[in-house]
């Protein structure tokens, strides 16, 4: 996991500088935001000329899944006071996965803090390495780094496409984003795609969910 985090951090740092952030701004994202998907989303919108509002909204929405980790992690680690702020900042995909996989409470606590802290140190160190490399690279198009940013998003979404509804949403998002790009300000088509996902998610139920809803209806 350490190697994966390191290489992922280098990719982020380099692409962030290519998107137009300076090294200090890139580091501020890794230190303050500390959530890979949100950080890539921010630089994606900023790099393609989006407004501050669109970049902030997109990064925040990509980070919403972290809010759902809190209820899983909080009862395992049982912290209060200022340490709660630290625990919140370290609540990410990796630390949640490790903490929830442990059977005994002490191992869950240790797993959460060591994984969260370890990833934080690695992520920020390698973001800096990547940012310095990106700074030295020069014209990003010449090295195909604009395509690398697209590939990074593809790599982030790939493992989330395992169910049919997710694939329908992905297809709809691509169509909506491309169809509205010529007529809407940069960054807005991406947010519009999120609205479409929200509508599909609320109104189009998966088969098992629909079946159990019918069952409840019958029992009533």
């Amino acid at each position, binding site marked *: 996991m350490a190697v*994966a985090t390191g290489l992922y951090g280098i990719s982020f740092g380099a692409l962030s500088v290519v998107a137009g952030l300076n090294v200090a701004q890139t580091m501020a994202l890794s230190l303050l935001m500390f959530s890979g998907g949100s950080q890539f989303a921010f630089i994606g919108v900023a790099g393609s000329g989006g407004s501050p509002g669109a970049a902030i909204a997109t990064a925040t929405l990509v980070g919403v899944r972290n809010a759902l980790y809190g*209820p899983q992690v909080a009862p395992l680690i049982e912290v209060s006071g200022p340490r709660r702020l630290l625990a919140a900042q370290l609540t990410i995909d990796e630390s949640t996965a490790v903490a929830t996989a442990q059977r005994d409470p002490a191992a869950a606590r240790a797993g959460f803090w060591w994984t969260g802290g370890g990833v934080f140190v690695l992520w920020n160190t390698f973001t800096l390495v990547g940012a310095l490399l990106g700074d030295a690279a020069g014209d990003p198009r010449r090295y195909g780094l604009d395509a690398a940013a697209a590939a990074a998003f593809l*790599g982030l979404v790939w493992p989330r496409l395992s169910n049919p509804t997710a694939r329908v949403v992905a297809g709809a*998002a691509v169509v909506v984003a491309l169809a509205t790009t010529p007529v809407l300000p940069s960054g807005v088509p991406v947010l519009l795609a999120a609205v479409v*996902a929200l509508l599909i998610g609320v109104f189009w139920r998966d088969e098992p969910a629909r079946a159990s809803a019918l069952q409840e209806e019958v029992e009533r």
Partner: protein
Amino acid sequence: MKGAVLWFAVIAAGAATFAVKLVGHLLPRHWLAKPQVARVAALVTVALLSALVAVQAFTSNGHVVLDSRVAGLAAAAVALVAKAPFVVVVLVAAVVTALLRWAGLP
């Protein structure tokens, strides 16, 4: 965005993302631990990332454009099917695109 505006956006987005994490720790557990909430949140993430793939790969200055990036993205997809690690996926896209541009394609 650049300069002070970009700094503002970086700090505001960082604060908002942190607030979202904190909300998960502070809200009563049963509010968020619902399958329907998790499902919609997962779909919103999929939509945002998919839309970002499309915008990064197929648009340029507000127009839909097909250029060497398409081949780079296709190569990245092949790498993902082959279960390559993240950095390899990103590098493959960059190398394929750079080679095509070096050969004179847009």
